[in-house]
């Protein structure tokens, strides 16, 4: 990447300041300009390695030899971390989410596979209840993302604490729930409207970082409450109440209303009417009818499961509001702010769009009062879409954040936009996991996401995102163990990538090797398993752990490498053939075990050990039986093709005593002939130019030959 510095002060690579769409991230290298070259390469995971090289300054070199301080370094290598920037969730938390989402994901995939198998047998419509499984999956993931529900179960309630939160709601969870509401949940018991209202209650504070929202307004009010003497004189108080009422936070409204000055005992007498009006509104607020599938505990409002019941209650409630609105008591209420504030609240409850619009700040906040007060029976998605369009026109926000953009994408029914927003704002984890929700009950999406695409190399969008996520997981040593779960759910390229990943895992620690072998076992990747074992074997061998190296190679049944290794080993044994230090090989030979087949050329060691053992016993004066055993081992050694030629002569030399056995000839005719042939072969080999042996002394050779000849004659006689 040879870029010429266009502006030595700031930029290394020229760029046009007009191109605003290109995101620019400064890399602080701390080097004195000019920079001569920049090299960029991928490092571990999503890290980029950026090497900045300074030009060779000849004057500097002339100047001093040992005077090069820190400022005069020739360059610098920096590691730049790329990635999504959800500041609320750090890497460790992200890993925790990644771990926790494996079991629900695996469960869902398992269910899909078993359902697919079932439908192949009996082509009945088993997919009818599929969304129920997805909902279960979605709820377990949602639980994992943190419990952020509003809670007010403190033992001693702080009367001035109107807004209480447990935990910090995250955009990730907000986005997840939003997708759940629109793609999975909308066909279940709870209606779209009530879900969106509940969603906003939980995540309103995430709608915008800079602009005012209802919750940021209430937080500000909360701070002021402590200092305010006459609360009802403050317009902020009334604004806060109307905002909270608009988005349906009945508890907050009632709590704030009860802070009204007229409740104070010393003022109760003088402001009786006023207090009555405040209380009347508070009661109306707390008895607001809601259409909801369950009755949430500790919440104000009257809940109805069925539409007719709700409509009846709703009409009655509105009648009460209208009656209060027309009441004569307002005239008697002396406090202007209270009067106006309360009547504003009544207007909001009656669904007056102007009052509502003044009380909220964001178009989603405007959408909710529509669902609460204006058209509480909104059910269909189209109707909802139309409402949202209207709200967006009234309360337009210039810079929607990722969450709001996602909401817009969902309303636009554009899966591509939804995926792009998820990917942009919430990263590959979100995309991979929310794909299950997008395809839960939407055939159009299913086709769109499962379709194999030529421009993606023949894989579907679904698989592409899973592959991307699996690579993110595999790039971190702690999460690489869970990447296979996602890879095996990729039908086209998953297993191939898994094989590549497994072969490239580090082998320094045998625990990691074994964990990877376990993955191979689970997914029946026998070839990769032996590949890992081979790599491990070579690694250990190279690092001087001969036993471990041979062990792994033997496990891998890699005869070629074992034979190669055997030759190395023989060299070190060959020098010490009659040495005591052969003893240290005992452990290794034990490891090779009696099953020499898988040990390749190393089988030699085992027989050789037996031969040495019995030879030693012979020397310590044992019987012919032991001598016979030694001869058997000798014959076995010389018959075996794995015994290297250079061992033949030392073996024969070592067994000279056996050949000259006094009591009777130990070798029969054919055995003697075999040994003689071997000896002949050796003598012939001596003539070849590539033969080299210093141990083949002529006198020893002739004595061996003589002993063999003598044995042959005795054997003849015996037979």
């Amino acid at each position: 990447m040879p870029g010429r510095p266009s502006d030595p002060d700031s930029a290394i690579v020229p760029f046009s300041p007009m191109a605003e769409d290109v995101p620019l991230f400064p890399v602080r290298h701390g080097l004195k300009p000019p920079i001569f070259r920049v090299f960029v390469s991928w490092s571990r995971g999503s890290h980029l390695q950026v090497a900045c090289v300074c030009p060779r300054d000849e004057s500097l070199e002339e100047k001093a030899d040992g005077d090069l301080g820190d400022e005069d370094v020739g360059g610098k290598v920096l590691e730049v971390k790329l990635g999504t920037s959800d500041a609320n969730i750090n890497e460790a938390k992200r890993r925790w989410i990644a771990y926790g989402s494996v079991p629900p994901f695996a469960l869902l995939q398992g269910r899909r596979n078993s359902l697919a198998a079932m439908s192949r047998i009996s082509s009945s419509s088993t997919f009818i209840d599929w969304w129920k499984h997805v909902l279960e999956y979605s709820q377990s993931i949602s639980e994992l993302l943190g419990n952020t529900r509003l809670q007010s179960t403190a033992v001693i309630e702080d009367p001035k604490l109107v807004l209480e939160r447990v935990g910090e709601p995250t955009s990730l969870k907000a986005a997840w729930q939003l997708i759940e509401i629109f793609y999975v949940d909308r066909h279940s018991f709870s209606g779209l409207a009530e879900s969106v209202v509940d969603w906003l209650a939980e995540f309103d504070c995430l709608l915008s970082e800079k602009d005012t929202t209802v919750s940021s307004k209430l937080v500000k009010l909360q701070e002021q409450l402590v200092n305010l003497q006459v609360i009802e004189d403050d317009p902020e108080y009334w604004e806060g109440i109307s905002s909270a009422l608009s988005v349906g936070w009945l508890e907050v409204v009632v709590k704030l209303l009860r802070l009204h000055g007229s409740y104070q005992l010393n003022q109760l007498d003088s402001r009786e009417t006023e207090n009555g009006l405040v209380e009347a509104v508070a009661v109306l607020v707390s008895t607001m009818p809601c259409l909801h599938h369950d009755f949430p505990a500790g919440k104000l409002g009257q809940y109805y499961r069925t539409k007719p019941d709700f409509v009846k209650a709703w009409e009655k409630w509105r009648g009460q509001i209208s009656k209060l609105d027309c009441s004569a008591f307002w005239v008697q209420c002396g406090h202007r702010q209270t009067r106006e504030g309360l009547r504003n609240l009544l207007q909001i409850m009656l669904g007056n769009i102007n009052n509502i619009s003044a009380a909220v700040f964001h178009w989603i906040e405007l959408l909710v009062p529509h669902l609460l007060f204006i058209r509480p029976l909104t059910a269909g998605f189209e109707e909802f879409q139309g409402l949202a369009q209207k709200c967006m026109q009234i309360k337009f926000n210039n810079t929607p954040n990722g969450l709001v953009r996602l909401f817009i994408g969902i309303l636009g029914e554009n899966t591509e936009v939804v995926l792009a927003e998820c990917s942009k704002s919430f990263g590959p984890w979100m995309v991979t996991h929310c794909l299950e929700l997008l395809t839960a009950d939407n055939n159009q999406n299913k086709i769109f996401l499962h379709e194999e695409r030529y421009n993606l190399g023949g894989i579907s969008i679904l698989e592409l995102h899973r592959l991307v996520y699996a690579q993110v997981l595999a790039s971190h040593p702690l999460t690489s163990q869970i990447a296979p779960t996602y890879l095996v759910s990729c039908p086209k390229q998953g297993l191939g990538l898994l094989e590549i990943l497994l072969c490239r895992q580090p082998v320094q620690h045998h625990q990691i090797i074994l964990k990877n072998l376990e993955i191979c076992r689970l997914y029946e990747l026998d070839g990769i398993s032996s590949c890992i074992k081979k790599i491990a074997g070579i690694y250990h061998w190279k690092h001087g752990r001969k036993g471990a190296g041979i062990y792994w190679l033997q496990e891998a049944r890699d005869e070629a490498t074992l034979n190669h290794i055997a030759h190395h080993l023989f060299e070190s044994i060959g020098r010490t053939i009659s040495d005591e230090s052969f003893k240290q090989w005992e452990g290794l030979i034990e490891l090779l075990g009696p099953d020499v087949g898988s040990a390749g050329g190393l089988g030699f060691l085992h027989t050789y050990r037996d031969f040495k053992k019995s030879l030693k016993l012979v020397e310590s004066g044992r019987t012919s039986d032991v001598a016979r055993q030694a001869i058997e081992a000798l014959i076995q050694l010389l018959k075996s093709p794995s015994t290297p030629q250079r061992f033949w002569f030392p073996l024969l030399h070592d067994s000279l005593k056996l050949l000259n056995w006094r009591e009777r000839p130990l070798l029969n005719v054919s055995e003697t002939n075999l040994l003689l042939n071997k000896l002949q072969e050796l003598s012939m080999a001596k003539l070849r130019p590539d033969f080299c042996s210093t141990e083949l002394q002529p006198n020893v050779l002739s004595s061996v030959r003589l002993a063999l000849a003598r044995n042959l004659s005795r054997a003849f006689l015996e037979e």
Partner: protein
Amino acid sequence: MAGSGGLQYYRLPQYKSVDVVRWLRPLSAFDRFIAAAVHNPDVVSSAAIEIFSLNPKPNTENPDHDKLLNLRSSWPSPSRITSLRTSESSRKHLVVALSTFAGSVYFLYVDPVDASIDLELSVDEERPLHSGPVSAVDIQAGGYECVTVGEDGRVNLVSVCQATLESRVLHDSRGLVSYTAAKWGSQEEFATGGLGFGLQWWDRRKAGGLVSQFKGNWAQGSMTGLVHSIDIYPSRNHICVVGGSSGMVLAWDRRWQQQPIFLSGGGLTGTGQATSESDVWEVQYDIGTQTSGINSAPTSKIFPVMMCSEDGILAVVEQGEAPIELLAEDCAINSFDINPQHPSEVVCGIEWESIGILMRQRESLSLLTET
């Protein structure tokens, strides 16, 4: 995260890899101390020993997970920790012996009251005990001496000597044999394990040290045969319990060396019931749950053994009995330890960066002893 059937289980996220967990024996019966070897691959030199105190009586209605474990002290390790053992010393300290990837061994002296780390001893850091990682370390009951074994084939004895650690090479196979597990059997004897389900019995009073060997015929099948963990009950140290690859839990009675007794796995012979088919990372005798009968049982009886495995199983296996599964995690359980003072409590090191605390209640304990 409480479980059912008389078991209470809490999984506590640590946000870093938990490699080994061990209980410490505090002075007070009301304290619970846990030592954990942790590391975070994202941060350079982040390996450490962390000592936690456990609140043994958490509010079961609303267990506040952050309050269950409190970090008391921490000791940064120069290299990732491979093995960890604890003991109490006669000088009223708790001793933690640990070994590292870089081949070193450290002793930490922990205050038994407030769990602070008072003193740290190490062998000469210029000359590591092992070339390459130390596979296993085991400390003697007194806390004065430990044995270390490594893949490089060395067997070292490390002892405390006037505020330093002195080491002696008992055996060096120069890489021809690798050792992967070690456990003391008495003051003078210990067992080591290695490749191919090989077990060695050592006596340091003897020249060379090696007394006897036990080999498993591992090469016959296609399964790997590494020994990961050994446990020996002091009063009957002729039996070694071994956990290893391929779900193998077996017992080796040194008086009858021909055949091992399979407690779990051992698919080749088919004698044992397989609790798991993946690696058994750790085994420990689960004797604490037996209220009586330890001394009266015949000497060939093998006590129940607790094991943890790569596929997330924590179970108790016993000869001739069906295994009792205590936990089935979604990921590997890499390490566990039974509290020696309160055997109903088990701590687990879980692959997904967390520590698991399992409390078996009295009812379940009596159930265990009845079966």
